[in-house]
C-alpha cells in the first residue's frame, strides 16, 4: 500500500483549485449573506433587521402564506403521488410510465407555468390561491413520484408474501408492511416538494396575477428594493429550512443511494 501513496499525493493537486473555487464562489457568497443580515443600509452593525423581519406584518404574512401553500401542495402531491408510485411499481412497464411522469419536468418551468396560466385564463378561472396551488402541484408532482417509486419498487416482494402468509389481509399488508418500508421515500418526496414550493420564484406571481407572493418572490423583492439586511435574514431562514430538510432526508435514507437527478 505504501508504494501507491506518491501517486495519490500527486493526484490530490487536481483537487485543490476546486477547493479554492468553492471557498470563493460557494462559501463566500453565503458568508456575505450572513454578514449582511447584521448590517444596516449604511454598513453599520445592527440587529434592527431581525426586529424588522419578526415584527413587520407583511413579511410574516408572506412566511405564513408560503408555509400554507407549501403544506397544502405537499399534502396534495403525496395523496396523488403515492397511489401513482404504488401502482407503477406493480407493473413491469412501470419504468417507462415513470419516464412519462418525469418528461414534463424537462420542459422549462416558465413555459409550463405560462401554459397553465393560459389555460386557466381561457377557462375563465379566477387567478388566486387555488390556481397557485394547482400550478405548484403540477410543477412538483414528479418530484414526489420519483423517490416514492424508487423506494416502493425496491421493496423485497418476499416481505409482502410473508405478511400475507402470516395472515395479514390486504389493508394490513399495506399499512404494516409497504407503508413503513416506504417512509424514506415519503420523507424525500415531502422535502423535494415542500422546499422548492416555498422558495419558488415567479410561479406564484404569474399564477395569481401578482396578488400572492411567496418566500422566494419576497426575497428577490427585498434585494431589488435594496433592503439587503431583511433579504439576507429571509435567505437565512430559507437556508435553515433547506438544512433541516436535508438532515431529515439523510437520516431517513442513510442506506439509500444519494439523491440522483435522473
Amino acid at each position: 500500500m505504501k508504494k501507491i501513496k506518491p501517486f495519490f499525493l500527486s493526484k490530490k493537486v487536481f483537487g485543490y483549485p476546486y477547493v479554492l473555487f468553492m471557498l470563493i464562489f460557494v462559501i463566500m457568497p453565503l458568508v456575505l449573506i450572513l454578514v449582511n443580515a447584521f448590517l444596516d443600509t449604511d454598513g453599520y452593525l445592527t440587529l434592527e433587521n431581525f426586529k424588522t423581519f419578526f415584527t413587520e406584518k407583511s413579511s410574516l404574512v408572506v412566511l405564513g402564506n408560503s408555509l400554507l401553500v407549501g403544506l397544502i401542495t405537499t399534502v396534495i402531491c403525496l395523496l396523488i403521488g403515492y397511489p401513482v408510485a404504488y401502482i407503477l411499481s406493480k407493473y413491469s412497464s412501470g419504468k417507462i410510465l415513470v419516464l412519462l411522469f418525469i418528461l414534463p419536468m424537462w420542459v422549462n418551468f416558465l413555459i409550463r407555468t405560462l401554459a397553465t396560466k393560459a389555460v386557466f385564463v381561457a377557462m375563465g378561472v379566477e387567478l388566486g390561491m387555488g390556481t397557485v396551488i394547482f400550478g405548484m402541484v403540477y410543477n412538483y408532482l414528479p418530484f414526489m413520484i420519483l423517490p416514492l417509486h424508487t423506494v416502493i419498487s425496491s421493496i423485497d416482494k418476499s416481505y409482502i408474501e410473508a405478511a400475507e402468509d402470516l395472515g395479514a389481509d390486504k389493508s394490513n399488508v399495506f399499512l404494516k408492511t409497504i407503508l413503513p418500508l416506504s417512509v424514506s421515500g415519503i420523507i424525500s418526496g415531502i422535502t423535494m416538494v415542500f422546499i422548492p414550493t416555498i422558495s419558488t420564484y415567479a410561479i406564484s406571481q404569474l399564477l395569481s396575477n401578482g396578488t400572492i407572493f411567496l418566500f422566494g418572490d419576497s426575497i428577490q423583492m427585498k434585494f431589488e428594493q435594496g433592503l439587503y439586511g431583511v433579504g439576507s435574514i429571509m435567505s437565512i431562514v430559507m437556508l435553515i429550512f433547506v438544512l433541516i430538510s436535508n438532515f431529515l432526508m439523510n437520516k431517513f435514507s442513510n442506506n439509500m443511494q444519494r439523491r440522483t437527478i435522473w
Partner: protein
Amino acid sequence: MVKKILEKAYIFIILALLYLPIIVIIVYSFSNSSNFSFAEGFTFEAYKSIFTSSKSSALLDAILNSLFIAIVSSVVATILGTFSTIGIYAFRRRFKRAVLDVNQFPIINSEIVVAVSFMVFFSTFAFPEGYLRLIIAHITFCTPYVVLSILPKLESMDPNIYEAALDLGATRTQALFKVEIPYIAPGIISGFVLAFTLSLDDFIITQINKGAATGINTLSTYIYSDARVQGLEPFWYAIFSIIIVIVVALVLTINLYKVRKQKKMLKGGEL
C-alpha cells in the same frame, strides 16, 4: 379485474392532467390566436411570425445568449469537474467528505438563495455586470453535478488498472489521459449533458444576476419579461411548441439509448 381497470384509469387521468396544458399549447399553436379559438382555422401563421415579428431579433439574441452561456459554462464546468473529482477522490477521507459536503451546497440550496447570494457577492467585489457574472454563476452551480456524475465511475474503477499502466511504462500523465480518463468518460459525458441542460434551463439565477442595465436576456428571462407584461401572443405558442417537441424528443432519445445500452450490457456485449 375491476381494480386493475381503476388503477389504469387513475394513472391515465393523472398523466392526462399533467400533459393537458402542454398539449393545449401545441394544438392552439396552429390557430394563430391567444384566446384558444380556431376562428382563423388551421394555420401556420404563428410559426411564420417567429421570423417576421418585431421581436424576432430580440428572440434570436436571447437564444444565442442562452446557447453561448450554456456552452461556455458546461465546457468549463466539465473540465473543472473532471480534474477536481480525480483530485478529490485522492484526498484523505475526512477532507474528502468535507469537500463533497460543500459540493452538495449549490445542489440542495434553494435557487433563490443561491441567486441572491451571488448578487451580493458580485456587487460587493464589483464584478463587471454581464456575461462574466452569469458564466461564473452557471459554472458554480453546474460543476457540483459534474463531480457527482463522475465520482461513482471513479469509485468503481480498480486502482490496479492505473498501476498496471504505470508498471507497463506509462508516465503518470499518460496513465491519466489514456487509462483513467477514458475509463470515467461515460460519467464525464453525462456530467456535461447535465451541466449543459441545467445551464440552458436556468431562469432564477440568470434573472437575478443579469443586471438590468446590460440588456442581456437568455431565452427564459426573455420569455419572462415579455409574457409577464402582455400575456401570451400567438408567436409564443409556436415557440413553446417547438421547445416542447425538441425537449421531449431529446429526453426520449437519451433514455431509449440508455435502455438499449443496458440491454446490451446484460447480454454481455460489454464487459
